[in-house]
């Protein structure tokens, strides 16, 4: 890892709790890289997270103020801190289940208020920490520990949800393409208002191995082959877009 990035990490917390092949390590690197390239002072940043694997990306790894809150409540806790001290750069980093299921109300109301937060949602489409249960983001048909016959509930499109609720910067990227990911995170950090970045970050342990992805590499390969930039998607028919993951700003 870049020595400049290592200086931003509490290395006494190593090794990270992430499984081999988890996307969250790449995302951790990308967030710190974006902060470093923007030359933000970590001492003036607050990272707020909920409960779940993704919540452990900033806490306790980042050498900044971190607030590791309850399941689903990160945006509400962040709202209080940001309102009382607007000079803090407040970034929420949490998972899809945390932000969009148990915390869905705070997500849409944070977006509606357009409060000046950067919300990074690591979407692994599963409840990873608790053993691979179906999430509000799990694709139709996927096998999980609570959908042994395949998921029959359609997932949220988080970007459309948050955009409709009023967020003023909405984007999706994946850990399979880290360069555009860092670029998007930088734009989100610089944005004044509610900035939401959904980051597809696959979970080989709980999602991949139950759904015929025999290795982390296969998940990353799948992401690369099935991702499409939002610009390229324009003009394509719904049939052509079937199963594609749209990346970019919305």
């Amino acid at each position, binding site marked *: 890892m870049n020595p400049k990035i290592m200086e931003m990490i509490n290395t006494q917390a190593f090794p990270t709790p992430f499984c081999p092949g988890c996307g969250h390590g790449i995302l951790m690197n990308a967030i710190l890289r974006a902060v470093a390239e923007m030359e933000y002072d970590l001492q003036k940043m607050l990272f707020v997270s909920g409960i779940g694997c993704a919540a452990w990306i900033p806490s*306790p790894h980042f050498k900044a103020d971190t*607030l*590791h809150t309850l399941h689903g409540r990160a945006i509400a806790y962040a*709202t209080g801190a940001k309102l*009382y001290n607007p000079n803090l750069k407040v970034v929420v980093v949490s998972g899809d289940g945390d932000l969009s299921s148990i915390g869905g*109300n705070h997500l849409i109301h944070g977006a509606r208020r357009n409060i000046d937060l950067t919300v990074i949602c690591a979407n692994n489409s599963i409840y990873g920490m608790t053993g691979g249960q179906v999430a509000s983001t799990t694709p139709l048909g996927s096998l999980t520990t609570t959908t042994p016959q395949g998921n029959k509930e359609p997932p949220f499109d988080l970007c459309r949800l948050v955009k409709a609720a009023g967020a003023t910067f909405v984007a999706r990227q994946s850990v399979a393409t880290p360069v555009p990911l860092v670029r998007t995170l930088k734009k989100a950090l610089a944005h004044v208002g509610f900035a939401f970045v959904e980051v597809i970050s696959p979970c080989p342990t709980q999602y991949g191995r139950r759904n015929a992805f025999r290795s982390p590499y296969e998940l990353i390969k799948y992401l690369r082959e099935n991702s499409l930039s939002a610009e390229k998607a324009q003009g394509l028919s719904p049939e052509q877009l079937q199963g594609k993951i749209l990346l970019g700003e919305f």
Partner: protein
Amino acid sequence: MPWKKTKSLLEPGWYFMQGDEACAEGALAAGCRFYAGYPITPASEIMIRMVHRLPEVNGVFIQMEDEIGSISSVIGASWAGAKAMTATSGPGISLMTESIGYAGITETPCVIVDVQRAGPSTGQATRPAQGDIMQVKWGCHGDVEIIAFAPWSVQEMYDLTIKAFNCAERFRVPTFILADEAVGHLRETLLIKEEVEIFDRYKAPGLPPFGTDEPNGVPPMPAFGEGANLLVTGSTHDPWGFRKTADPQIQARLTERLVRKVKDFRAEILLTEGHFLTDAEIGVIAYGFTARAALAAIKKLRQQGIKVGLLRLISIWPFAEEAVAGLGQNCRVIFVPEMNRGQIAGEAKKFTSTPIIPLPKTNGEVFEPAEIVEAIRRNLT
């Protein structure tokens, strides 16, 4: 110690004010500069007072999307450096309870006003009750020590809210005002003094924020943005905030300290008041609005030659066990009128072998002095 005297925000003198409004004024006088709330009867007047008054003192007000959001943003603001408050009623306390436990384990100062109404569930929204006594104490999973006060007048809605902020900041503990609909909506006179004594958060850069070498001490509390690299987590943590979720020693030390830092400082927190106790043979324990009826009843019984005395609990948690035990030593029987099914009566039984007779009332109406007189006379014959 960071105690100081400051000028009252309101001009000193007499006011005619509602209980809920006096609570808001007490908060502002104590230094509250962040309020988050969600509409609920019979506590909404506190929020309405705050939305007008906070901007006048450069404070922050926000109406959140629900009570979970309210307490969450209060805790976030508290760590950003604010003296912070929310107010609600029983149903809101139910929703806030998970975060109250979080405030407990993270030692976050905050004040939560519960203007109690008749439950359970939606119950009778506009009717008084005292049914949340045990909920605020035992609602959280795990052992969380909290502090609670029960005002009986508009004056105490003001004074005890100041005391609640001082306790919250001094001990880094979520602190409750256990009001009820009757005292919240009551209008009577309020005296504002020249000065108020307030406690400002203890800072000691370089010392760990979640543990201290002093056996009973309360650790210093830095704020976000001060360069402390704060690690705040609801998971079990070491004195610096690092998660230690499988270390039995750290779990034991943390949970014991969270309880001890309140219990060892009980003398600073406890508030009780005695009326006609010196020669009392029959005791009454009462608190909140009910204590007004109890005192009136005692005066009537005294006129009839019955030696009754009142122990009024002003602080509810931690429990005034010594005062209850003392009352038990001097009296042959103790009556406990309360607007619930005997929550404090049951607690009092732990600390005295003197017979305790609960006088529960849960019809959504306050006690009349006459019914307490009658209940005591009936039980004595």
